[in-house]
């Protein structure tokens, strides 16, 4: 098991008191698997993804990545762990606007210095068809190119787990397919991918899809009867 989420609960304070964003959700993803979580906006899927990535401390439950309980680490140790083992891709790309494509991909080496970061970055960008854009700034790129740059950045340190939050949300079908194929390839190469999306097209690339609503998982077969299950295993 590469990623293990156990009875994870996260609440937010709302105007009417505390609201469960994620409620007692459990999830396991092994290496080599691509899991998609599908649900409407506000269902808690981004909260789950951020918590799984060690960015959002849950109110209850625990997150294990490669056997390491993320929230037993100090914030600094957790940052180090993220730098080494977890990659993120977001809908908004979050590229640093004043850095070139190549520099953006090399940013993770600031957090976890690695040898030949530039060569690795260039290699990734070539794989993603971005070799002609190495020295362009993000504002000179198309949205598809920006997302491919963000994808290369997520993979620089050779993470085991890739967390993708609506990575195709701003892309056309052609670019979305390219990104999703790359995620699939990453999983086939031994990584684990957890994708959260409301894009049905993306679901076709996943090994397994979990539907999420109001902070809980719903199995596809049980969706019609509105029964819920908060445990999902992919192996």
């Amino acid at each position: 098991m590469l990623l293990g989420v156990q009875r994870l609960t996260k609440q937010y304070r709302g105007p009417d008191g505390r609201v469960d964003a994620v409620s007692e959700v459990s999830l396991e993803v092994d290496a080599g698997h691509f899991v998609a979580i599908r649900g409407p906006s506000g269902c808690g899927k981004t909260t789950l993804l951020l918590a799984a990535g060690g960015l959002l401390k849950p109110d209850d439950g625990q997150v294990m990545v490669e056997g390491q309980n993320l929230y037993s680490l100090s914030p600094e140790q957790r940052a180090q762990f993220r730098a080494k083992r977890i990659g993120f891709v977001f809908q908004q790309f979050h590229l640093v606007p004043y850095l070139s494509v190549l520099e953006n991909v090399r940013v993770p080496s600031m957090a976890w210095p690695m040898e030949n970061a530039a060569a690795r970055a260039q290699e990734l960008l070539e794989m993603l068809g971005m070799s002609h854009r190495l020295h362009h700034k993000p504002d000179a790129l198309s949205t598809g190119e920006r997302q491919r740059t963000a994808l290369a950045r997520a993979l620089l340190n050779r993470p085991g787990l890739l967390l993708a939050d609506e990575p195709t949300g701003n892309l056309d079908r052609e670019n979305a397919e390219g990104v999703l194929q790359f995620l699939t390839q990453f999983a086939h190469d031994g990584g684990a991918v957890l994708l959260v999306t409301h894009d049905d097209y993306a679901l076709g690339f996943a090994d397994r899809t979990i539907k999420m609503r109001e902070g809980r998982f719903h199995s596809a077969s049980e969706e019609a009867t509105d029964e819920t299950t908060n445990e999902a295993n992919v192996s």
Partner: protein
Amino acid sequence: MSIWHLILREIFHRKLNFGLGLISVVIAVTCLTGAMTLLRAHDLETDRIVAEREAETAQRMKELEDDYRKMMLKMGFNVLILPQDQNLGDLYADDFASHYMPEEYATRLANSKIVTINHLLPSLQQKLKWPEQQRTIILIGTRGEVPLLHRDMKKPLLDAVPPGTVVVGHELAQSLKLSKGDKITLLGRDFTVTTTYEERGSKDDITLWIDLKEAQDLLGKTGQINAILALECECAGDRLAQIRREISAILPDTQVIEFASQALARAEARNRAADEAEAALLAEKHNRAEMRSRQESFASILVPLVVLGAAAWLATLGIANVRSRLAEIGILRAIGVRGSQIMLLFLQKAILLGLVGGAIGYLAGVMIGASLGDVVVAENGLWAWDPALLLMALLVAPVLSVVASWIPAILATRQDPALALRES
């Protein structure tokens, strides 16, 4: 990728933010170094003015000394050496000594190692009736100065009167219509007038000066004198007793009297002049010190205000910078950049801002201070170059910048990456 790489790229991307911050640091450092340069200029100018005044005073005192020396020459002599048995009452009543001593006394004194006397003038004086003119005159026979053998030669205060010539006092010259080159007859002997004196308002105005030897012959006092005049003797205050002791040891049968009023008047005048010069100098120093104090007070209010303003402005710019970079901070945190690195991202930028602003502010402050400082002493302006001040600017500016950026840096560090990513 290093933090510096990111900082430099960000600076070039957000030039306005960095430029505005830089301006505020430059203004603060310019105020600080400008004020200090102005004060330094003031101090230099004060030193120059005081040195100039001191030189002027010294020169003035030298001139006064020379004036008094000349005045003393015209007024009379400091010390009069008379025969031991000379009655002073008779001397004051008759205007000349009625007792005599050997001319050789002057030579003996000159050959001694006396140190309190600078010039010696032996003379034979007598009030007499000028038979050829039916006038009462004072006849003074003088041989000029007797050189003091053991001392360096000094410029004579009085020249000898060559034989066959006469120097005529003002009143006699006026009344007898005598001028240079005229011939007169005195006690049957002919003399040529070489000099007529200006009016002195004293017995000198009815005096004739002739060669001592001729006077001795005319008055029947061969080898005799009745006074030795000692000029420029160091006789002020209690040194008179020393002079008397020295002279009586060499010439035991003589007495010494001092023209106390002249000597003291000279010393008093000199002291008063010195006091006035000193007072003027002190007033100048006081005036300069007050000006400096006013400048210092003004700077002590203005500079902290400007520095505080700059710090507030820097903090505001820093907060704005953090707010505009929330997503960037969020993604950096997400990919594993530590909070301490985020902090360094802002503080190192603040140090760079301080160093650049400090250097520019130093140059601007020095140039403004040098141009407003009105320092005359050094025209090339190199006086304003102060490595210690530069070092201070390069220390103070980064510290100011770091302090002002501290809160924004803390805000950035504490930024919740999940919140930042979700909100963006």
